[in-house]
């Protein structure tokens, strides 16, 4: 293969060199001026321009019809998505008209006014009238485009009241989602308390205490180790240990602001949060998504819902949308059936498993080696009941220890807040120890 590549390149160069020699000899014989475009060359290039122009027009038209303005995403699954699609269609009509018109003028003139013996170009250096025309026409068209665009933009970006809050938290290379629970309020969260069991760094007062206790113990342990075996450890190891102690101390200090921000209300808000790996939405409900990231910038792209928002470390961003078509309904749409039939036909040939339509969330900001495979499945259900069944199941899962023992905090009215917090601390401590 390597050899082949080199061979082909060498051959091409040799062939070119031979051609050039022949060409040069013959043109020398005819004593031609290389700068002058001959009649033959003019005819050839005019013909090529025509062929190219026709090909461009025909193939672009064919592509617009064949693929359409949103291939594979024909149907918007969100309410505002319909506005966006409409705006797209309106813009495409304007822009395609301009495209066909200007390309046609360009190529027609370029072909029609090819060099001819005896032709002298017209000395036409400027015309205020014409120039005004093509300043004003684009200006007016653009004014229309701007107004249309901004109307929809303002509509989309205005927060919706009483939307259900869901947090999307990005990390290399996956997504977590957090439902805000019955109170529709997310508990505080902070990257400093992230751990495997608490991937979003949800904060409770109890957790802060536990963390502090654990870190202090660790400091003690390392300091003791330094004291006892310090002389025997190699320098770089020792340095590492000292550094670690310092970092832990800093971390403890940095817990302070978290503690101050914590109130009984925020503890409660955190306690009913539910963290999931798959997103369930109810058709027809408004959702307010809040986005954060723990490491680098990611971007949450929901192609079927015409939604996208960056997830930026150290910052919260938001986006609202209302799903209007459930997954089940979408699977019955003729466009979708057709697309997935074709897709599966090919997948079978390639020996891949067949797939069904699903909504997805993907990462759309370069974020590292597995950027291309950072996804979360989204299911839109038709009814609140379907959602509730799934949600109850999620709440039961014991993956997230700060929630353990507190599946239904709202019902435990007899318990005082302190006891709730205590339970949280216990369970966290248990998780820490294992």
């Amino acid at each position, binding site marked *: 293969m390597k050899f082949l590549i080199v061979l082909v390149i060498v051959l091409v*160069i040799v062939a070119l*060199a031979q051609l*050039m020699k022949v060409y040069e000899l013959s043109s020398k014989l005819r004593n031609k001026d290389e*700068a002058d475009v001959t009649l033959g060359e*003019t005819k050839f290039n005019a013909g090529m321009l025509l062929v*190219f122009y026709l090909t*461009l027009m025909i193939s*672009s038209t064919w*592509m617009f019809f064949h*693929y359409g303005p*949103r*291939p*594979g*995403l024909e149907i918007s699954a969100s309410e505002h998505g319909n506005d*966006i699609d409409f705006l797209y269609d309106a813009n495409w009509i304007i*822009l395609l008209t*301009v*495209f066909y018109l*200007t*390309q046609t003028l360009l190529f027609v003139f370029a072909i029609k*006014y090819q*060099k001819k013996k005896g032709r*002298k*170009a017209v*000395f*036409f250096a*400027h*015309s205020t009238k014409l120039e005004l025309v093509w*300043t004003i026409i684009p200006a007016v068209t653009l004014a229309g485009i701007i107004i249309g*665009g901004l109307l929809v*933009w*303002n509509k989309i970006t*205005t927060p919706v009241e009483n939307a259900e809050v869901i947090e999307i938290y990005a990390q290399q290379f996956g997504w977590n989602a957090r439902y805000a629970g019955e109170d529709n309020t997310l508990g505080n969260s902070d*990257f400093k308390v992230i751990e495997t069991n608490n991937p979003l760094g949800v904060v409770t007062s109890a957790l802060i205490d536990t963390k502090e206790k654990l870190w202090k113990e660790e400091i003690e342990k390392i300091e003791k180790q330094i004291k006892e075996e310090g002389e025997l450890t190699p320098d770089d190891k020792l340095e590492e240990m000292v550094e670690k102690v310092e970092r832990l101390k*800093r971390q403890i200090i*940095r817990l302070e602001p978290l503690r101050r921000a914590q109130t009984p209300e925020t503890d409660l808000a955190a306690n009913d949060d539910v963290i999931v790996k798959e997103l369930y939405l109810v058709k027809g409900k408004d959702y307010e998504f809040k*986005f954060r990231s*723990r*490491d*680098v*910038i990611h*971007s949450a*792209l929901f192609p079927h819902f015409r939604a996208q*928002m960056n997830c*930026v*470390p*150290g*910052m919260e961003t938001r986006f609202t949308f209302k799903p209007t078509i459930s997954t089940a309904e979408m699977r019955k749409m003729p466009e979708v059936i057709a697309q997935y039939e*074709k*897709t599966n036909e090919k997948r079978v040939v390639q020996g891949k498993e067949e797939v069904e339509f699903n909504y*997805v969330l*993907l990462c*759309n*900001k*370069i*974020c*590292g080696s*597995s*950027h*291309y495979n950072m996804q979360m499945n989204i299911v839109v259900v038709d009814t609140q009941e379907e959602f509730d069944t799934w949600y109850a199941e999620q709440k039961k899962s014991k993956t997230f220890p700060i929630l353990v023992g507190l599946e239904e905090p709202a019902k435990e009215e007899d318990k005082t807040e302190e006891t709730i917090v205590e339970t949280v601390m216990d369970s966290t401590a248990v998780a820490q120890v294992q």
Partner: protein
Amino acid sequence: MGAHTHEEGHHHHESFITKYLFSQDHKMISKQFLITAMVMGIVAVILSVLFRLQIAWPNEQFEAMKFFLGDSYLSEDGLLKPDRYLAIVTIHGTIMVFFVLTGGLSGTFSNLLIPLQIGARDMASGLLNMLSFWLFFLSSVIMIYSLMVESGPASAGWTVYPPLSILEKAIPGSGTGMTLWLLSMTLFIASSLLGALNYIVTILNLRTIGMKMTRLPLTIWAFFVTAILGVLSFPVLVSAVLLLLMDKSFGTSFYLSDIFIGGEALDASGGSPILYQHLFWFLGHPEVYIVLLPALGITSEIVSTNARKPIFGYRAMIGSILAIGFLSFIVWGHHMFITGMNPFIGGIFVFTTLLIAIPSAVKAFNYITTLWKGNIHYTPAMLFSIGLVSTFITGGLTGIILADATLDIPVHDTYFVVAHFHIVMGLSAIFGMFAGVYHWFPKMYGRLMNKKLGYAHFWLTLVSGYGVFFPMHFVGLAGAPRRYYSNTEFAFLDHIQDLNEVITIFAIIGGIAQLIFFYNFFHSMYHGRVTTQNPWRSNTLEWTTPVKPIHGNWPGALPVVHRWPYDYSNPDHEDDFVPQDVPLKEGEHSH
């Protein structure tokens, strides 16, 4: 003054070193820029073909990968590693935008044409000019070298957004590779600034007698505004880059906050990654016009000469260059609609961005009107210029979609954006560069490039260029994100894989077609037909210099300018061109 330089022109004895290496002659420096940029261009084209192979056939091994990249880029199963995929995408973008289209395009043609077309002996400062080239050369070497470091070159995309570009734990390329990237870019910016200052001063101060600003060829106007954009925007990039370097190496946190990576929480707090984006795009948007304006300037000159007609609306052309230059500083936010910026501010950026389309439209229409009732000579340079206008229209129109924040939501960071900017930069601006090379080759080497090969090169490039970037719009509209190692993980993207294969095939054809150009270039350098003094029968001053380039450009006194540069087919004259140094006839009015 004339006599003094006259002598210099003839009795100056030069060694190889002062003539070819440390030359201070603007014509030699121009050629040095061009050849360096061509070499960089080859590297970037090869990289692009390699990652296109990966996108089209993600599960196949290619010998070409091993041949060009070596084993360190491949995983055990012989496939390109995902992070190295991002690495070559990053270096491809960096080289093309900065080294080929900024350094290469401005460096070559500003240097060659500014003194020649304004009637000056040389640049205002030959020394700074030489320094500008050598900094450029050094930064090129560092950039290429970074491809070979063990942990890989910078991999965070050509925009190197932090935190990805800062954290080695996030991607290996953000280690040594990124440091080299920053170093190279800093040198590059220094080179650009030296160059740009020199161009501005030269244009303002060294115009020959009669060369009023309103008689400057549009090439010079374009270079002038480009240089101003560079001087105003590159320093902002320097600060962005330096802050990035500090975050990376000295523990500051301008761009970092709330980061948990590799199992631990970093100390950094209070910084904002978005700050970097503002700084970057404050340069980045003017930068796209730094890339495009010289190409447009070159085209204005070539279209007018080869249509044998005055450029239509000379003053409107200057006005639109100035308007584009000004507006390009207040639109950067359109790259950041999805960062969670305040929607009201987003709306303002929509407005300013769409304003830019107006002067752009004026330019396009003026080119088209220049062709109308012309007498068009299809030189390769002319064909490339026609190609430039066609692609400028196509790419400008998709810009209007992207400028509309609402419409940007679904396509931001998808292949739709990639298609947009490649059509305006990868085709339009590159076509301008090719056009310039074919047109001014005689002024560089005293010989002509072969026309037949030029035609082959043009047609293959135009067809494959459209073949690559036109279908790409649909890949983006289907929702395919850019910078994906492969689209196989998402079944909803399966149906556009055919399109991806088509694109790659065109990319390979396009890549190979460039061999014709290289062959033609180097062959003609030594064996091309010797040119006459004014082969294109053009009006501008460079064609009044002797065929064999000399120091000081004109053997005698500097030419005196009597008219604007676009007196083609002037009915008062018999010839269809009237060079700028021809005095007005009795009763004739200068334009």
